[in-house]
Structures are given as structure tokens and as C-alpha cells.
């Protein structure tokens, strides 16, 4: 809307670097949008951490109740790995920092051997739970913004 009867509804002679304002004609809401977008990475990271922490703790509890996995349950984790280009997030599900005397166990249980069939906990978790984890992260992000 024009500020004065004979004035244009927007001004184009103000320098662009003065930032958005009603007078310059740049919608002020853009400034809020930019601020909002700036918070996305940190809110997403926080939500992802909360959901993954919950997933890891539930999985460890489940593994503790399994005779085969009991000894290595506390080493189950989800870690972030760099994708090489630095702009993506790749998550690795598995057993990490397992001490040398138990280091054979994760692979042995995952793929099986001549005596025992594969229990495949990691692969089954990824196939069964990954969608839930992704969905939960989305919900958590919404909660944070709410």
C-alpha cells in the first residue's frame, strides 16, 4: 500500500544492503525466514541426537537380554561418518570400540558361521528401525519448533 497518495507503493532507489524493511519494499518476513533457516542445522542435529540416543539405549537393553549379544551390548552405537564432501550426514550402525578379546563377536554373530546361523542384529535393525528413526527425527524437529 502506498504511504502517500502520490508515492509509489515501493521504493527502488534505496540501497539493497540496507536490509529488508517496509520502506525498501523487501518483505520483512524474508528476514525472519532467513533467521529460521539458520536455526535448522542445530535444531536438526539436536533432534537427531535425542532420537538416536533413545534408539541406542533401547537397542542396548534388548541386546543385554540376548545371551549371545550380552557381552558386547554396550558397544552398540550409531556414529556419524563424514561423506567425503563435507555436506552430508551418513550414519553408521554397529558395534564400535569393541575390545580385542571380543572383536570377533560382532561379525561372527552378524553373518553366522558353521554352527550358528546369522543373527544379523545390525542389518535387521537398519531394515526394521531406520524408517522409524527418520520419522522420529522429523517429529522431534517439529516439537522443537512448536
Amino acid at each position, binding site marked *: 500500500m502506498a504511504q502517500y497518495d502520490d508515492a509509489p507503493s515501493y521504493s527502488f532507489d534505496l540501497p539493497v544492503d540496507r536490509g529488508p524493511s517496509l520502506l525498501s519494499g523487501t518483505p520483512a518476513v524474508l528476514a525472519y525466514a532467513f533467521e529460521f533457516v539458520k536455526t535448522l542445522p542445530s535444531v536438526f542435529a539436536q533432534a537427531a541426537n535425542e532420537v538416536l540416543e533413545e534408539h541406542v539405549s533401547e537397542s542396548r537393553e534388548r541386546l543385554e537380554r540376548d545371551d549371545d549379544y550380552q557381552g558386547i551390548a554396550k558397544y552398540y552405537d550409531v556414529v556419524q561418518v563424514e561423506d567425503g564432501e563435507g555436506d552430508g550426514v551418513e550414519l553408521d550402525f554397529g558395534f564400535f570400540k569393541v575390545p580385542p578379546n571380543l572383536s570377533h563377536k560382532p561379525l561372527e554373530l552378524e*553373518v*553366522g558361521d558353521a554352527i550358528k546361523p546369522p543373527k544379523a542384529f545390525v542389518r535387521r535393525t537398519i531394515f526394521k528401525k531406520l524408517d522409524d528413526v527418520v520419522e522420529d527425527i522429523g517429529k522431534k524437529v517439529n516439537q522443537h519448533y512448536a
Partner: protein
Amino acid sequence: MPDRAGFLLAEDQALKAKFSGIQLVDDRDTTRDVQVFFRYPEGETEKKYPFITLEMLDINHARARQHSEQNIYNFRGTAPTGQPDDHYATDDAKSFTYWPDTTTDVSTLVANGAASLPFVSALEHVPVDLLYQVTTFTRSALHDRALQSHILTKVAPFRRGYLAVGIDDSQRHMDLVDWRSADMVDEEAGFKKRIFRKVYTLSITAEIPASNLAGIGQVTAQAEIAVKDKITADVLS
């Protein structure tokens, strides 16, 4: 061998067929057969390297492929008297021709208490993903590499893998989702010999019927109306 009918039975048979018949070439034998077993062969079975084992790991409800609940229909072939054939086309989105792991022609199945009725109906099948582990065991690095090459290019290539299930003539998606090395030492040889082992993880699409097949009759003024009762007729028995 005749095609085996039944959920998992049909897929198992198809997967075994897919990995059977592989021959490796080396300086001693130009047609070295690669045997295929379900699970690691028992002690009584003489193991001839190289060989392949198949194991099912899991069955997951494929929620991404699940539609809202709806009925699907099939027409048996002859339109009821006085009705034009084109009212009974079976080529729309809600028509179905096969029954998972059972037949290619659902109209040949006897419907639930209504074998002579012109239409059959069912709830849409439930999509699932079957997770399989395929493991190759070889004594030499050359066999290991040759098998790996064959499987990755001919049997389960990335992006283009498929599984032909004979009994219902369906072509399923068969995705290679992971492969890794897992070499081991041979217990039976006193831990003195190496076994080269590769582990492939495959995801295969399948469907499970959600309801019984039911017959649907034409509504007429006098005739008995044989519309199915969803509560009693659809429940899987």
C-alpha cells in the same frame, strides 16, 4: 522340479534356482560346479568347495508400498446374461490376475463358497520385504574373485536385480543392499586352511494375501444376493 506353491516356499525355490548352475574355471577344472545349500551343510554332507549358502534373515512389512485398504476384483470370463463384456474388464487399477505364490490366473481358484459366481474379490495383498543372506565359500582367492564377479554382474547386479518366481509368474525386485568380506579359518582343517567368504544381503519383494478370496454375485430382483460379508468371508482361515 515343479514350481513350489506357498509364501516363502516359492521364493526360496526361486532364489536357489537363481544361484544354481554357476560353474567356475581354473587350471584344473574347466567346469567346477558351485553347489547351493540352505544353511551351512551338515557334517555328514561332504563339502566340496566352492559352495553357496542361503539363509533368510527377516521379513519386514513394506509400509512404503502399502496402500489404504481397498478391495481388488477379478472377472471370471463370461459376462452374466444381458450384461456387455466391457463392463467386466479386468484391466483397471483395482483388478488383479494373480494370487501371490499360488497361481498366475486367480479366476481358476475356487472362491470362498462361490465357485460359479462371475466375480471374485479380495482385500489388497500386504507387501513385505524378505531379507536374505547369501554366502559364498571358496578355498582359493581366484574362485572367490570369480564368484564375486559372476554374482555382481550376472546374478545380483546393483540396481537391476530381479527374482523370477515360477508359480505365480512374477518378477520380483531383488536388491543387493550390502556385501562384505568375512574370511575365516577352517575349523575342520584344524584352523590351518583359509576359507574365503563373501556375504551378500538381498532384499526381495513379496506379497501376503490379506484376506480369503470371495465370490461376488450379481444383484437381481429375485435371485439370492451373494454379496460377501466382510466380517465372515474375508477373514483368513
